[in-house]
């Protein structure tokens, strides 16, 4: 089990997301006196009689003035069990863009649902995007339970709605937790007698993090070839990178893709010295028995399992204000490889409101999710995103401005969605 959990919190504008984040920080004692006092002063300045926990996290001028969250913010808290990196994403207009940003690196997601309104359009969108991005654990937190006197019956109704949405987007048996972010009940403190499950924070502390990545086949995109040519290290030649999945050990045979060159691992240098083996998440430098012509952009594997191709099908989440153009020329960055690419027109788009694929009638616009074919100038080694999150993702980049136009998932489809 990892001792750090990367968590994304999503939810609609008024579902109490900032209050929950403030509550987690406050109840894990991650807010120090000066922050608390300045937040209290800011709350009083706005006419409140008690501390407004949302003001702890909404830090930008415009956010405080308008009472909304504009962009993803990152927070840190720790409990005796584990440390947390929390991506606090806005529920507002640019929902897909920001949720994708927060969710792409997340081990777990909490989606807030206001118990009074039940499942909303935003709940469906967030659930769909989190399922699309294959976030390993999705927890629905049914909030504002205090406002309905912790009605067990109402919670059961909303939980049924959530299970229906989860099934349609392909989330298998999601956790559904009743909470009050305002009072803290069942967040850190215990919940009502009728609820048999764990409080939200306890649940988060006990989630297994990233087990798949260690068990998966070995993948390491090469970032740098390190050749010091110094008096001390005249012949050193190492392939530096971060292990994306699996494990590699000294003596293992290895293949570089797309070149297909093979060799045997003769040494692994880690940040604290030589290693016998390295696994997912570690930044290392691998030395090989043979002098292979391997450069940045290649992917090392322990077998020939990764596909190298000049074209692939993909799902794009369009993130730019300017819509996609038919046969648009772009840059594709997959792992450490950047190459020129050409996007087909979208073949189908995903209606996030009723969760169905439809034949594409127009170009992809901001926040649209659509299927395209990507042609590449050079072969690129990629996996299906459904199998390997780390080596199945790519960026679509504007060659002129450098802007990130879209988040890409190779070969991905949306699982058990109704088509």
């Amino acid at each position, binding site marked *: 089990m*990892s001792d750090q959990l990367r968590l994304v919190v999503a939810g609609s504008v008024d579902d109490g997301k900032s209050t929950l984040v403030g509550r987690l920080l406050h109840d894990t004692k991650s807010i120090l006196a000066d922050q608390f006092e300045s937040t209290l002063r800011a709350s009083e300045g706005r006419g409140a009689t008690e501390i407004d926990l949302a003001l702890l996290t909404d830090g930008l001028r415009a956010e405080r003035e308008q009472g909304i969250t504009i962009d993803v913010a990152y927070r*840190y808290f720790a409990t005796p*069990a584990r440390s947390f990196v929390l991506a606090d994403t806005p529920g507002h207009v640019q929902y897909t863009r920001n949720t994708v940003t927060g969710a792409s*690196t997340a081990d777990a997601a909490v989606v807030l649902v206001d118990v009074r309104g039940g499942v909303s359009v935003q709940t469906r969108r967030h659930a769909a995007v989190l399922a699309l991005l294959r976030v390993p654990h999705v927890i629905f937190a049914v909030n504002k339970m205090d406002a309905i006197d912790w009605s067990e019956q109402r919670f059961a109704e909303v939980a049924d709605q959530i299970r229906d949405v989860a099934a349609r987007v392909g989330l298998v048996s999601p956790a559904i937790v009743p909470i009050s972010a305002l009072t803290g009940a069942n967040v850190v403190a215990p919940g009502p007698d009728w609820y048999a499950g764990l409080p939200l924070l306890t649940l988060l502390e006990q989630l297994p993090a990233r087990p798949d990545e260690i068990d998966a086949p070995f993948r390491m995109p090469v970032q740098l070839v*390190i050749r010091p040519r110094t008096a001390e290290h005249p012949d050193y030649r190492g392939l530096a990178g971060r292990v994306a999945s699996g494990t590699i050990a000294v003596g293992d045979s290895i293949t570089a893709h797309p070149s297909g060159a093979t060799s045997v691992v003769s040494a692994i240098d880690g940040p604290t010295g030589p290693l016998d083996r390295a696994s997912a998440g570690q*930044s290392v430098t691998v030395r090989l028995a043979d002098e292979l012509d391997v450069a940045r952009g290649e992917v090392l594997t322990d077998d020939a399992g990764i596909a190298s191709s000049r074209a692939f099908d993909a799902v794009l989440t369009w993130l730019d204000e300017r819509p996609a153009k038919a046969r648009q020329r772009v840059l594709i960055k997959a792992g450490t490889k950047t190459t020129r690419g050409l996007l087909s027109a979208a073949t189908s788009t995903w209606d996030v409101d009723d969760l169905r694929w439809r034949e594409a009638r127009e170009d992809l616009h901001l926040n649209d999710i659509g299927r395209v074919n990507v042609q590449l100038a050079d072969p690129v080694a990629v996996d299906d995103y459904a199998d390997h999150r780390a080596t199945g*993702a790519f960026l679509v980049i504007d060659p002129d401005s450098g802007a990130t136009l879209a988040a890409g998932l190779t070969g991905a489809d949306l699982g058990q969605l109704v088509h």
Partner: protein
Amino acid sequence: MTTVTALPTDSALRELEAEAIEIIREVVAEFDRPALLFSGGKDSAVLLHLARKAVWPAPLGITLLHVDTGHNLQEVLDFRDALVADGGHRLVVAEVEQWLADGRLAERPDGTRNPLQTVPLLDTIVEQKFDALLGGARRDEDRARAKERIFSVRDAFGGWDPRRQRPELWNIYNGRHAPGEHTRVFPISNWTELDVWRYIAAEDVALPSIYYAHDRDVFERAGMLLTPGPWGGPKPGEALQRLRVRYRTVGDGSCTGAVLSTATTVDEVIEEISVSRITERGATRADDRLSEAAMEDRKREGYF
């Protein structure tokens, strides 16, 4: 509301290290003229330590850039120069004094020079043709910093617009930019003050002596313990006292205060900040007390 509770475990610390090394390697691989912003403070000392590891056993071919307000403590400058000499690094120093001398900048009425760093920083980036700047900023330092991406593209004015940030997806970093723009990169974004100190302990990273408790002549101003220096003071009514103190951050002497402390070792410092009820910046940085959004306002203008 008493203490910061848990300490992250060693594996969490090594994960932060692996992430930082990955980010630094992306910069080394993708940029032509990267620089590392080095103030001599603990965050930049850790960043330099990580950068050396990222390319080991090759030498680190990255210029170090220090914007010197002219109000730095001598111990910090001595530490900087010793570290640069020892590592064989190229150091560029942008002296705020020079910009004041030739009229490109004017002193502020309150005497603080911290906000004056922005112009020399931006001028030096253009002059030296730096295309990427590695910095030791952390998201836990400030509400505005919490919004910062790891790769942050800045326009020709160095400006930061939180509404127009690029989405940052997976760990595929996009630092591409148009000519005239540059990219700021923050490899230790996800570290907290405690993570930095735990890493200093684990790796035996050298720091300026002022981070550890020592006897110093200080005077009190606006609740902070300042060292006498060219920034003025003590003024009439501000009495000098000899106290046992240390610094939690280093920066411009006019607005960075010392804290009362008896912590003379790394372990004692970790113990001290573990039970502190005040954040690093809340305790010792006057420039962040100017308004609710002081850091955001400075960052919008190109401050680091």
